[in-house]
């Protein structure tokens, strides 16, 4: 069974949600405290959402230096899967495991609402259970989610197919880009495709009894073995 470690920083508040979502998808999920220096033999590491260290200074800027992050860096360097959701995505950018930065929403207000996003790449460990690019509706809840990077980086992300999640284009009946992110970027991965960060919260929509399970396939992806090359791409 795939072992999923959910890192708890002081101020994490989606840690329990992420753990439950991973278990619902069939993984074995457990917490790792930010002061731990080992990941308990995890195959997958999730940096959950929340306000690590209150998001003081900049979101993720302080959490990035937590003792556990050395182990996370090593896990990523060894090709292990690392997923950052919302605050986790911000931490990954601050830690330079992903390029760019997440800045104050263009609207200058915290935004909590469902948005329509296109799962553009299904060749990452967080999305390969989608067998083709798919539009899903996921909640966002953040004050600093505007993805920003220099032109060169943006061009590279596009060229290398590293924009994993993109906010839907404005249209009747869709809830588009909520934060002014460049190129409607909602999630990206690193060049090796084993580190993925996204702003929306799939872990909050995994139970049909609550109205939507649009997020479940993300966690099924984590729990499922990597599809054979030439398989679902």
């Amino acid at each position: 069974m795939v072992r999923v470690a959910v890192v708890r920083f002081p101020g994490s508040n989606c840690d329990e949600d992420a753990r439950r979502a991973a278990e619902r998808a069939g993984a074995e999920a457990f917490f790792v405290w930010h002061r731990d220096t080992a990941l308990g033999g995890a195959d997958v590491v999730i940096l959950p959402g929340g306000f690590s260290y209150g998001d003081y200074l900049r979101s993720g800027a302080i959490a990035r230096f937590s003792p556990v992050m050395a182990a996370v860096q090593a896990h990523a360097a060894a090709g292990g899967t690392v997923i950052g959701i919302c605050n986790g995505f911000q931490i990954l950018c601050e830690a330079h495991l992903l390029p760019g930065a997440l800045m104050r929403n263009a609207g200058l207000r915290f935004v909590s609402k469902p948005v329509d996003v296109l799962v553009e790449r299904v060749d990452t460990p967080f999305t390969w259970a989608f067998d083709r690019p798919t539009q899903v509706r996921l909640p966002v809840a953040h004050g600093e989610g505007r993805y920003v990077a220099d032109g060169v980086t943006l061009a590279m992300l596009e060229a290398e197919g590293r924009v994993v999640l993109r906010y839907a284009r404005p249209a009747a009946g869709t809830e588009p880009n909520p934060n002014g992110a460049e190129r409607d970027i909602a999630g990206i991965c690193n060049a090796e495709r084993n580190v993925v960060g996204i702003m929306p919260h799939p872990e909050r929509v995994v139970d049909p009894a609550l109205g939507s399970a649009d997020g479940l396939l993300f966690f099924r992806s984590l729990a499922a073995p990597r599809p054979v090359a030439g398989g679902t791409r």
Partner: protein
Amino acid sequence: MSYRVHVRVVPRAGILDPQGQAVEHALGVLGFAEASGVRVGRAIELTVAAGSRDEAEARARKMCDRLLANPVTEDYLVEVEEA
């Protein structure tokens, strides 16, 4: 004439500054033990068209009083340089 004005807005002494506390704690963890009394506020830069340096400063202070600073919780400091 136009001047470049630098405004610093910081939490008033005695007022709790959770952000400053968190940054100070983090600096300590990073081995910057020599840092203390950290306060975090806002830095605002703007260009002000004015007849004189003094006028530019006076106008900038008005902006602080009316908009840039919160009179209940913050102090501000204005510096003017020729643009």
